[in-house]
């Protein structure tokens, strides 16, 4: 990663950790890790004998199997689909490939439960394992596509040319050299896919497919069965932790870097020849399935209309509430990310890096588990205060999407030259003024990106919102869910439509931006960032 991290030899021992920033970073870390702490506290309180009864039973085995097999199949399919799509778009003479580069990214903005809803509305009898595989693959493959596309664009084409010139066929070259170069990007994207599938609730509930997450929600909703929800949460978090740990394991092997900048130039597109119509058909099919079905379903349902036994609700008010929560969460998460991002780039000591990596543990904790652990906290330690209030909901959003904010802010801090700050200091400006007058203006765009990412994720968040939203405040997601659960599909459709608009438009912009960024960098001779999993979180 081109962190531009401060040279550790620079003024050794002189720069001590700024106390205010350090205190802020530690405080934020404590809050971010609260859900994990309370999960453990709750598990201890439930007690081993009850945990044992709840964990070692047939249903748990079934749920773990159903969840893990789904994670494995969806992850493998997404890795294959994302990589292939990226290669066709980046490296071949596929017609309209710039258009496809954008169209295949947009599904990332469509909430998974809306994709599921669209399929279910059009094919009412769809359900079960393969339906879940289909919907999740179509909803999240861009998590692999984006980093792999970036990595392919940044990679030196000479390696492939050498492989071909040494007699390797096109397919073998693709499998060994191309996939090899993009290996870290594929693994990183796949890791995110796995985490998303573990945490998903809405999409599976709609399809009637039970996973650990949907069952936790049911246990909690039916009779507020906290012990059972807690026991299953422990397993879920362990599985998430296992996925995160696998990133380290993979990262440890081999190198994808090389010495020397190579020749920065465009790749010559591989001619598809007679395969061109088939590949084009495949690309169109992918866009139709991933984007056409959910969007088409929403439009169809809205045009078709229908009655609902639920009272009418206000789309405008729900949109307003969603915007307010998303904006608040964006601000809180971005500000909270600032101290740790500044510290970990400017003062990259082992202790600071350890603190930053500990924060990332929250990636393994699904939103539902975070929401339930705060429910437990408010119920047992705060006499129910703050439960289902807006401040707590915003805090939970900020914790859930904290890693996104850290990654964006960190990248921005790393890109802003520390020299400018030193110039400021050398001209006699005090350190705090340097922060306000030099550092913040430099990293402004990065802060904006962090805000935007958290905003988008919050606007389409369903599970934690269902658990913690105040009784009289409906958001787009909760109102959608109320109608959807009542099978009032036509009434649910506009809410889904607004969420798609909120998320897909920036998804389009992201696609455009991502599409240009690394290529510009490559052409300018600047080494493109090696797409490791942490950069991917930002995607």
């Amino acid at each position: 990663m081109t962190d531009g991290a401060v040279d550790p030899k620079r003024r050794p021992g002189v720069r001590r950790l700024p106390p205010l920033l350090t205190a802020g970073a530690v405080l934020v870390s404590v809050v971010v890790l609260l859900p994990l702490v309370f999960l453990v506290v709750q598990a201890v309180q439930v007690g081993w004998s009850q945990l044992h009864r709840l964990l070692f039973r047939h249903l748990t085995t079934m749920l773990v199997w159903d969840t893990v097999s789904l994670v494995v199949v969806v992850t493998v399919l997404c890795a294959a689909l994302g990589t292939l799509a990226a290669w066709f778009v980046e490296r071949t003479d596929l017609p309209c490939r710039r258009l496809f580069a954008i169209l295949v990214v947009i599904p990332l903005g469509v909430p998974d439960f809306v994709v599921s809803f669209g399929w279910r509305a059009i094919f009412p009898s769809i359900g079960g394992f393969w339906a879940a595989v289909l919907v999740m693959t179509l909803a999240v493959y861009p998590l692999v596509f984006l980093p792999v596309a970036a990595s392919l664009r940044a990679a030196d084409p000479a390696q492939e040319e050498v492989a071909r010139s040494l007699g390797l066929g096109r397919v073998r070259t693709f499998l060994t050299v191309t996939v090899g170069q993009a290996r870290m990007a594929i693994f990183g994207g796949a890791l995110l896919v796995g985490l998303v599938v573990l945490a998903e609730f809405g999409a599976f509930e709609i399809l009637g497919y039970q996973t650990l997450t949907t069952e936790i929600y049911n246990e909690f909703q039916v009779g507020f069965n906290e012990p059972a929800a807690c026991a299953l949460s422990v397993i879920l978090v362990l599985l998430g932790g296992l996925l995160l740990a696998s990133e380290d394991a993979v990262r440890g092997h081999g190198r994808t870097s090389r010495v020397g900048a190579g020749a920065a130039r465009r790749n010559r597109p591989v001619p598809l020849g007679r395969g061109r119509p088939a590949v084009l058909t495949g690309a169109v099919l992918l866009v139709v399935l991933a984007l056409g079905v959910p969007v088409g379903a929403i439009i169809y349902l809205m045009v078709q209309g229908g009655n609902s036994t639920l009272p009418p609700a206000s789309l405008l008010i729900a949109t307003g509430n969603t915007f307010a929560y998303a904006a608040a969460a964006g601000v809180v998460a971005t500000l909270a990310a600032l101290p740790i991002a500044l510290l970990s780039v400017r003062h990259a000591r082992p202790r600071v890096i350890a603190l930053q990596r500990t924060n990332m543990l929250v990636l393994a904790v699904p939103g539902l588990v975070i929401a339930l652990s705060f429910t437990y906290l408010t119920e047992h330690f705060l006499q129910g205060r703050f439960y289902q209030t807006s401040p707590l909901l915003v805090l939970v959003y900020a914790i859930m999407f904290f890693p996104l904010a850290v990654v964006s802010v960190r990248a921005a801090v790393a890109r802003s030259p520390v020299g400018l700050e030193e110039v400021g200091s050398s001209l006699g400006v005090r350190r705090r003024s340097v922060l306000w007058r030099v550092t913040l203006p430099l990293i402004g765009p990065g802060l904006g990106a962090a805000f935007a990412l958290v905003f988008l994720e919050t606007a389409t968040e369903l599970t934690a919102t269902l658990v913690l939203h105040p009784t009289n405040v409906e958001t787009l997601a909760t109102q959608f869910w109320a109608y959807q659960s009542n099978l009032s599909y036509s009434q649910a459709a506009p809410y889904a439509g607004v969420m798609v608009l909120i998320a897909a438009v920036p998804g389009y912009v992201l696609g455009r931006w991502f599409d240009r960024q690394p290529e510009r960098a490559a052409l300018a001779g600047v080494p493109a960032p090696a797409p490791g999993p942490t950069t991917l979180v930002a995607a």
Partner: protein
Amino acid sequence: MLARVDPSTLAKTPSRFNSPDGRWVGVTARVSVMIYNTSLLKRDQLPTSAMDLADPKWSGRIGIAGSETDFQPIVTSIARTYGEQAALHWLEAVKANAGGHDYPDNETLTAQVNGGQVALGIINQYYWYRERAQVGAGAMHSAIAYFAPHDVGYVVDVSGAGILSSSTHQAAAQRFLAFLTSVQGQEIIAHSDSFEYPIASGVTTAEPETPFDELEPNSITVAELGTGAEAIELLQEAQLL
């Protein structure tokens, strides 16, 4: 957790539909019924008792919503009549018969029976009427039917309302409960799309539901239905929860 409801409010609902210790008041009632797809099953093919659903002949033909709270009263009722062991065996057999037709909620179960994906299910009556209100009578391919009078699966349950002791609006909340159980409030419910039975202040439901006093449910009381804790444990043991 719940404050006591005003005695005058409690008095508007027959006492058998109120919380035994006056912590909540019964507002509406619902009754468990069979829903069946009319092209897949004839009326005379229907079982007369919920216990019959454990018969292997229903394998692949019934749907359930095992995690739905409305399912628990039936489990409690069976456990009260035949004992926990029998209730557990019934649940396991029904789960096996349902196979992949275990749905997340009664709305889905209703829609699936209506759409012909599965032939028969147990729901509360109002789901069928709501489905009809939503999709229109022309799109209904299902009907509801009752179990034999006083059958163990023929259960009347109550939707009640209570006030949290922690609420800072006690007086307003008491007034609202009084309104819910008043003639005016009950008339609103009777003519709404909720399709539950009004039970307070002598208000009766509008057509076309079977009039409430013509129902012949079994004798299980609201107090015996309790919190559903026993049912939840049985459902967990049967791996349905």
